[in-house]
């Protein structure tokens, strides 16, 4: 594993502004916004799987979309192999896109029902071919244009400096003056070193037969038969559609695949097949995955590292064994305790963490989990706990003021067999 992370996000933020009513606009009320992703720092190394878990509404899908540049972030920095992603736009962005591909949440909605399998799976190939052809023409032009702009700036800088030194020069002997002037003229003449203009061969327009052949080669890697090129997506089961979606993402050989709930619509047996396939693909072809899910079991099996998100913030990051076996943050504990276990002995227990996710519209300062946390203290409500490493859990970062105190509390204690407090209702 190299030291340069594939994707590195620092304090990434995505706000969705709310519309104001006319009264609010004229009374000068500030625009409020939904803080979907609120200062997230996360990195993915090449060939690594990072699991992103959290409840719905915690911003994990938005984060995935921002990393794939499907949403524009509102603040923060995002780097891909050291290159600043937020600077890319237009066709340059499109040419970059083959590096990161997305498998979307809804396998029915993300496949066009009127296209055949080879058209769906081959579409990224056509798009990339178009983009490559554009690149072959425009990359030399871009380099020349940049060179032109840079040398104009350089000329202006030289002239400015030469003129600014005129009074000082006049005090020097004439021979010296002459030498400096010649130097200046020579520098103007010389300009900047000539740019290396790459010769990019123009790729030919991709042909239907090539697309079909490439699709045919890709389908077996996700476990689909090769003879289904001319079928429509409705002829596939849920697992089959999810495989199609995966094939479409893998056909352009991406470096990172963002998997947004890849197995939540599938049942246990099919889920096991897809997860096995993901692990095999990563071992054989070295993809990096960002696995966005609320299914803790899937993350346990596929991921190397896990980030737990709550209300737009990452509350805990660490290795999969560390976080899932020894969760530190109270929210992680609650999340793990809530997972139903296929064990008939753990029955008739009651989950103690109540309430829904609070509103994401301009959330108050302090820890986001304070309203639901059983270990809350006054400090949690005013000061936001930054991610930090604590003693006793190397390689694991947690955002909790009381991390040292709660580290030894087992998740199971958030469950109780005591009956609930009698409700106020009298309808029986």
């Amino acid at each position, binding site marked *: 594993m190299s030291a340069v992370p594939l994707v590195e996000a620092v304090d990434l933020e995505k706000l969705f502004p709310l519309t104001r009513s006319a009264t609010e606009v004229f009374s000068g009320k500030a625009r409020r916004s939904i803080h979907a992703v609120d200062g997230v720092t996360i990195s993915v190394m090449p060939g690594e799987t990072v699991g992103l878990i959290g*409840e*719905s*509404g915690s911003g994990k899908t938005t984060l995935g979309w921002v990393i794939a540049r499907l949403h524009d972030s509102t603040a923060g920095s995002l780097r891909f192999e050291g290159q600043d992603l937020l600077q890319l736009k237009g066709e340059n962005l499109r040419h970059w896109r083959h590096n990161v591909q997305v498998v979307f949440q809804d396998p029915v909605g993300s496949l066009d029902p009127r296209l055949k399998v080879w058209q769906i799976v081959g579409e990224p190939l056509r798009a990339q071919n178009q983009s490559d052809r554009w690149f072959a023409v425009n990359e030399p032009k871009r380099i020349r244009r940049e060179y032109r702009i840079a040398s104009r700036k350089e000329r202006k800088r030289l002239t400015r400096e030469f003129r600014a030194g005129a009074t000082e020069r006049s005090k020097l002997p004439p021979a010296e003056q002459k030498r400096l002037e010649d130097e200046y003229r020579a520098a103007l003449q010389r300009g900047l070193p000539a740019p290396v203009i790459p010769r990019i061969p123009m790729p030919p327009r991709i042909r239907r037969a090539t697309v079909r052949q490439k699709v045919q080669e890709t389908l077996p890697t996700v476990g689909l038969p090769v003879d289904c090129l001319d079928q429509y997506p409705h002829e596939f*089961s*849920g697992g089959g559609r999810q495989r199609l979606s995966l094939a479409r993402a893998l056909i352009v050989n991406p470096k990172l695949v963002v998997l947004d709930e890849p197995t939540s619509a*599938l*049942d*246990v*047996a*099919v*889920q*096991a*097949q897809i*997860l*096995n396939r993901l*692990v*095999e693909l990563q071992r054989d072809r070295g993809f990096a995955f960002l696995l966005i899910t*609320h299914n*803790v*079991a*899937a993350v*346990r*099996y*596929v*991921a*190397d590292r896990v980030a737990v998100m709550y209300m737009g913030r990452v509350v805990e990051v660490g290795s*999969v*064994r560390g976080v899932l076996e020894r969760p530190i943050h109270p929210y992680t504990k*609650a*999340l793990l*305790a*809530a*997972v*139903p*276990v*296929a*064990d*008939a*002995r*753990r*029955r*008739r*227990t*009651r*989950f103690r*963490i*109540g*309430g*829904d*996710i609070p509103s994401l519209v301009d959330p108050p300062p302090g820890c986001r989990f304070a309203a639901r946390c059983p270990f809350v203290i006054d400090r949690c409500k005013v000061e936001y706990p930054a991610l930090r490493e604590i003693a006793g859990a190397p390689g694991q970062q947690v955002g909790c003021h009381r991390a040292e105190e709660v580290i030894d509390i087992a998740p199971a204690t958030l469950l109780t067999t005591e*009956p*609930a407090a009698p*409700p*106020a*209702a*009298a*309808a*029986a």
Partner: protein
Amino acid sequence: MTDAAVSIEGLSIDYVVGAGRFRAVSDVSLEVPRGHVVGIVGETGCGKSTLAQAIPRLLPEPPATIGGGRIVFEGVDLVKVPLWKMPRIRGTGINMIFQEPLNSLNPAFRVFDQVAEAVHIRKVRESGAGNVVRTEPGPFDYSRRAGPKASDAWTGKIVPGGAVPEVVHRREIERRVGSRRDELRKEVLDYLRLVRINDPETILNLYPHELSGGMRQRIMIAMALSEKPSLLIADEPTSALDVTIQAQVLTLMKELIEEVHTSILFISHDLGVIAETADELGVMYAGRLVEFGPVAEIFESPRHPYTKVLLRAAPTRYKTDGPLLSIPGNVPNLNRPPPGCRFHPRCPIARPICKVEPAPPLAVVDGAGSTHKSACHFAAEVPQMA
């Protein structure tokens, strides 16, 4: 009559699609005892939802047809009840909670109106008021067609032997049964509190899209309970929710079973959810019930190879521990089910007899006193299966 909320005997359901006909549910017998939760698990397409919808006769008929068997509910065979009489049974007798709470709530009405409608309908039924004067009472009133019709009053027709039907305004009915808006409001609030909704006064005036998934599902449960059903069918009630909300809804359902005496048929493909909720468990494969018994016994010692591999497919390990065990092959096409036992092409302990002889009917596995049944020739060998 046995002490069962509903008992299904040899039920088969066929779908007729185009020229083909396939049997989605074949020869299923099961009983939901009163006050119990019976879980049904199985892969997609094994017929569990078809079974769930067949009990209140919600299946579209055609294409679906009930090919045989009985569904005995309160002494009535629902298969023989004509469809137009079913609405009388559906509300107060059998109620359903569907998988997608957003799709099952009406987006154009506030929460109050939707819950109030259910409460109002129950009140009208209980009081016997309506725009028709009914002549015969019964456990379920099927007499709508037997008695005089509402239209008779409008045409001034004199009904032989019956009272002249009374036609009254909707408001008058509401006055008689005590379901004016303010009266309903109190009851609706009670039901919302019953499903542990904080601040029900605010929630009443919201539309479904303003609520979170867990909240919507709780509204659905409130609506279902407000009709006081004796059987509640929950078809994947928590599949669309995520774990913490799912845990809350499951906790709530477990508490409600004791508070309002109802029986639940719980359909899910999530083994964890079933393990935490159900008392008895039925496992379905390709339209057949392959195993049935107390949930703890099935989880500890499954007696059908399908149950065993299904339990093992749940991911519980790390990547470094080796691949997950999945079930080889696919769910059989019900157009042409494999001959013999339907599970034999994927079964790790299949023998030649499984290919020719159909699977035996559900039989008790552990001596006479047990209720654990399995439909496998080699049920005794399953515990030793590798």
